[in-house]
């Protein structure tokens, strides 16, 4: 990932500057480029090269991270110090070891971790080529969970229950009573409920004498719900169902059905 620079041309330099992970990285690169021994760095040469790179960065209008400038200051300080005769150095430093060793140590340690990072990168490259099995739970969006532990038996049983209740309802009264038509009951419902008004579901049927009338009225109600003239509401399971007349009925209201409605009719069922 770190390109080795042969010629510091402007194009190459741009690539290079983006690639250096920090001032230590740049210093290591310069040491290698100048074929210096890391234990015997020539501070003057290194500082000169380093500052030249920063100048190039400035010319290229690249944002120079603050750390690069701090390092430049450190290098200048170390260089200036080598120019001073030993007797002119601050007395507390005469006894101490050359502070450039601190930089060298830092460079050596950094280089070890940089190499380790390179090895990690190689491992990463290899192992990113191995794919595990993606659990279904993760691949389908969290909302798409399937029906849970429902068996085919449950499904058939549920459908047969529906059919039974239909039969019961059919036995209890004929589905289409001669006396009532769905059209009549639609009018009845629209008459009974003014826009915005609501009524308990059971109350709608209270006055009705025959089961046939109930069924036809129910069908009329379903039709009106389908046409968005009526709205069936329930606050929760086992709570009473309320039927409300829409305030501003919209005959064709796909927006009420959510975002999926817009893309309808493309997919045919399997």
């Amino acid at each position, binding site marked *: 990932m770190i390109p080795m620079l042969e010629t510091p041309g402007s194009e190459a330099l741009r690539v290079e500057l983006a690639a250096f992970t920090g001032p230590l990285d740049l210093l290591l690169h310069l040491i290698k480029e100048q074929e210096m021994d890391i234990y015997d760095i020539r501070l003057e040469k290194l500082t000169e090269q380093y500052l030249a790179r920063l100048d190039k960065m400035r010319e290229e209008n690249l944002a120079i991270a603050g750390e690069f400038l701090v390092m430049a200051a450190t290098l200048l300080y170390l260089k200036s110090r080598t120019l001073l005769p030993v007797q002119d150095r601050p007395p507390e430093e005469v006894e101490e070891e050359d502070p450039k060793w601190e930089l060298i140590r830092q460079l050596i340690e950094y280089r070890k971790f940089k190499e380790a990072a390179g090895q990690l990168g190689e491992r990463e490259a290899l192992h990113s080529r191995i794919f595990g099995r993606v659990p279904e739970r993760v691949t389908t969006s969290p909302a*798409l969970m399937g029906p849970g532990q429902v068996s085919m038996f449950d499904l058939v049983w549920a459908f047969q229950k529906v059919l039974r209740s239909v039969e019961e309802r059919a036995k209890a009264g004929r589905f289409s009573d001669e006396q009532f038509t769905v059209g009549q009951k639609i009018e009845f419902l629209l008459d009974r409920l003014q826009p915005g008004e609501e009524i308990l579901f059971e109350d709608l049927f209270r006055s009705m004498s025959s089961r046939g009338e109930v069924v036809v009225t129910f069908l009329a109600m379903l039709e009106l719900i389908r046409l968005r003239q009526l709205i069936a509401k329930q606050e929760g399971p086992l709570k009473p169902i309320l039927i409300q007349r829409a305030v501003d009925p919209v005959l064709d209201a796909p927006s009420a059905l959510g975002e999926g409605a817009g893309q309808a009719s493309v997919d045919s069922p399997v």
Partner: protein
Amino acid sequence: MEWARVLEALLFAATEPMEPSRLAAILREGPEGGQGWPEVKEQEVRDELAQLSERLAPRGLILREVAGGFRIGTAPDLSGWVAKLKGVARPPRLSPPALETMAVIAYRQPISRAEVEAVRGVDCSGTLDTLVERGVIRITGRSEAPGRPILYGTTPLFLEHFGLKDLEELPNSEELRRVKLPAPADPGGPKQEELIHEASEPAPQS
């Protein structure tokens, strides 16, 4: 087949059932930046899948044909073992009302909400929302009926969950599709005839 190991790797890593035609297409195209086997035919893939199925049997894995494609899964008799693994927890079961709605849709799709409600005799908007959210039903189009109501049908996930190759595999599908149901708007209208027509093929019973 020299591409047999590619086939098994693809089936292993796939996130959805793989159709033999698509597997053949991938094998012909080759990998990213590489060469494939341009002569691979769908029938050869099918033959190889049949062999793979046999090889998997003694290994606790099975090749299932679901939702029009093939998918490797654990053998059904080992489900009690697999259930002990962390992270394979199943989503909660559907409630009985939701199950009823799903059953009606499975057998009578495409079907509108009003039609489902006419059959079940209760408001189904909540259960329909649940089923769409769970990914087992989806909006498949719009009816030509007045108001152009939205129609619902089952998804590939529905087939996958129940291990069905296609809807014909639903138990008693012929009979249950033919049963006359109450229609919401116009009893005895053209919808019924359409439904009967749909169930013209015999369905295998599971």
